[in-house]
């Protein structure tokens, strides 16, 4: 209990300072809008400006890109993890390409795919793909050699080997990759909206707030951004823990 109380001290102080500073007009209200104004903007956005529609648009993009990227990632990672030839042929190129900071792909993607929905989803997909490929690959390569020996003795077919041995033993690693992909995909959704400013979305909201010099809107956007990221992370951890319960600890 004391831990939680202690943890609340600094945020409370920050909030009090913010409130006091804007009450006493110590700061430029355009730079530091009062907490009430941010709350009012939140209310106004939800009721009149379709904040929920913006949020839904961002989440939909996020889910589309994440689903495509992570399923493709599991497939690629599996092939690279199981086939030595594929591994040696493609892994160095993959590792080379992923050295380029993911945001640096945005200008190229926007020229190839335009500024619309397709380009955004492609970018989010790429962001989700990378950690899933890496972790799936790692998980496949980490399968116990002893178990592989046993499976061979039992004359498993290739299919059985993959579905009964490699995939289950790679599952914890794949889960880690998918978890990372969820986080990356959300950040990438916002990033895609920053740079391809067509259509609704939370990222677009933040950029609009900056362009119109509306700090309240920017702060609201940041709060939503952090909150959604937090919920996604929490949800993923819970699902991960439940799925991997069978592992002996």
């Amino acid at each position: 209990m004391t831990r939680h109380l202690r943890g609340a001290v600094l945020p409370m102080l920050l909030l009090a300072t913010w409130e006091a500073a804007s009450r006493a007009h110590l700061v430029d209200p355009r730079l530091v809008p009062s907490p009430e104004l941010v709350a009012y903007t939140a209310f106004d956005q939800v009721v009149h400006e379709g904040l929920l529609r913006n949020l839904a648009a961002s989440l939909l993009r996020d889910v589309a890109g994440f689903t495509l990227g992570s399923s493709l990632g599991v497939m690629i990672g599996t092939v690279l993890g199981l086939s030595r030839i594929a591994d040696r042929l493609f892994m160095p190129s993959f590792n080379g390409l992923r050295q380029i900071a993911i945001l640096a792909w945005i200008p190229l993607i926007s020229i190839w795919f335009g500024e619309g929905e397709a380009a955004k989803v492609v970018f989010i997909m790429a962001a989700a793909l990378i950690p899933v490929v890496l972790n799936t690959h790692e998980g496949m390569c980490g399968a116990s050699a002893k178990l592989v020996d046993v499976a061979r003795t039992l004359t498993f077919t290739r299919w059985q080997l993959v579905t009964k041995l490699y995939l289950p033993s790679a599952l914890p690693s794949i889960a880690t990759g998918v978890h990372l992909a969820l986080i990356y995909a959300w950040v990438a959704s916002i990033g895609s909206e920053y740079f391809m400013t067509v259509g609704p979305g939370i990222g677009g909201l933040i950029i609009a707030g900056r362009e119109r010099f509306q700090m309240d809107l920017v702060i609201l956007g940041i709060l939503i951004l952090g909150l959604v990221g937090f919920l996604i992370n929490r949800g993923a951890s819970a699902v991960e823990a439940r799925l991997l319960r069978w592992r002996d600890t």
Partner: protein
Amino acid sequence: MRVAKISARAWLPIPPAIIAPLFPIVLLALWSVSARFGWLPPQILPSPGEVWAALLDMAHSGDLAGNAGISLLRVVEGFAAGSVLGLLLGVAMGLSPKTEDYVKPLFTAFAQVPTLGWIPFLMLLVGIGEPLKVLVIAKAAFVPVTLNTLAGIRAVPPMYREVGALFRFSRWQLLRKVVLPAAVPPIFTGLRYGLTHAWNALVAVELLASAEGLGYLLVWGRQMFWLDTMMAAMLIIGIVGFTLDRIMAAVEARLQRWRLA
């Protein structure tokens, strides 16, 4: 593992050094052929030769060195500021659970908003000059350095502390001679992540608000529809990022050596 290796050798008599470049070579060849026969217009996909020419052109005119220098300087400044703060906060929280109780929740909330989210906020607060870049990059490095420093100090085996207590080390001696040296490898891992994050943040901030730097080359190329310039800039961003990480990895490996002994 043994079984897999033998079968691989039987399947693959060619050494990996020859196989690895095979795919890029085929891809490059296909790319050249496609440019040659005009399968895709050069506004969509310039030939590899044009990208190379753009790269050489930028190198000769000094644009490349100039912009890369500016970007590197920003990263060094931001990374230095962010990692020093991260080390301090990480050590403070690592040594004192009380400090952690007070600071950690606010820190977590701060870290929860990705660097990309802080950029527009900081743009309004400090404008789009150099301070913006340094602040954004510092934030990106600060978070992983803090977390890994904290975890590294907590992971020091209690045995080590007990031995220190046996020698009647003072608090300061315990910190300097036992805790910090034992925590160096994980702390360095945090610094390495921090530098990677710093480099990514640099690209983000230069794409959004800059008139110079490697990220700006991308924006410029996009505005002009010069895909060759854009691709050359991407290549440089990849190479510099990779080199920075390799340097950190080499230092990290060196720092880990004593553990084996």
